């Protein structure tokens, strides 16, 4: 029963974290077509930041915790490729997210509020954010594939 409860939380966290992450590109992409005063963009960036800080990132932490707990509870060997590779990729996602993606988002909001949507640094940061988002997306898809295919 404990294992099932952990698995339920694990999958729910994966759905929320990855599902929310997948929405960022769409929300920000639509905001780019907003008004020249940048109100839609400001709303979109702050909403994405809230989604990331309050839902996606805590879910990633819980994903790691429940994943490790399930391995220990079920007595799986750490030597399985799908277990250590997915854990390593999750650590990479956390590092990229916390050290690069979140600060980029924060800086974008600051620049938008002080210099506006047409500022060159804002455009540069937007490109960087989109690139980071794509890299994170590919890594996350690789983790999901490892969980499904379970290569030993």
């Amino acid at each position: 029963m404990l294992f099932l409860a952990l698995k339920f939380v694990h999958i729910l966290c994966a759905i929320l974290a990855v599902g929310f992450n997948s929405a960022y590109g769409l929300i920000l992409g639509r905001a780019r077509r907003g008004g020249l005063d940048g109100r839609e963009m400001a709303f979109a960036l702050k909403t994405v930041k809230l989604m990331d800080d309050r839902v996606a990132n805590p879910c990633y932490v819980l994903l790691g915790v429940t994943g490790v707990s399930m391995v220990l509870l079920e007595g799986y060997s750490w030597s399985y490729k799908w277990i250590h590779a997915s854990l390593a990729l999750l650590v990479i996602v956390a590092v990229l997210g916390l050290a690069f993606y979140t600060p980029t988002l924060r800086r974008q909001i600051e620049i938008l509020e002080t210099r506006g949507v047409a500022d060159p640094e804002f455009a540069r940061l937007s490109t960087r954010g989109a690139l980071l988002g794509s890299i994170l997306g590919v890594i996350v898809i690789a983790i999901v594939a490892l969980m499904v295919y379970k290569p030993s």
Partner: protein
Amino acid sequence: MYLALKFLHVFLAIVAVGFTSSFGLILARAAKGGADGRELKFALETIRVMGRIGHVCFLFLLITGIALVHIAGYPWYLWLKLSGALVVVALLVAQFLLLPTVPRRLAILETKGPTDPEFIALSKRSAALGAVLGLMALVVLWLMVSKPA
């Protein structure tokens, strides 16, 4: 073939449930926006697009689920029947009750503004329906995980 379909099934679940779960948060933030309702308009237009994507994903979730049962040769266990039925109900509720409120709310927002009583009533109805659909998604997920015979 089975694993590829399972991967697709999981991916569709992530997009479908993940997208729709974010609507409450996006709209709640937008409701605190400017009095002219520009943030609300942007949020509603965005969730209209996300809702369509989510709806298609739910439909393919059902199709891939049925295909998985067929390929694996599972008998139609109670958890499979229940989860399938819940997804069909969720699809119908979304298609006929929830999604049509978005263009209606956008139309009211543009003509009468965010303080219009009908806009507020429709927003409350959508939030309640969204909560019910969220609960159904949790039940389906639990059925998928626990697989009660």
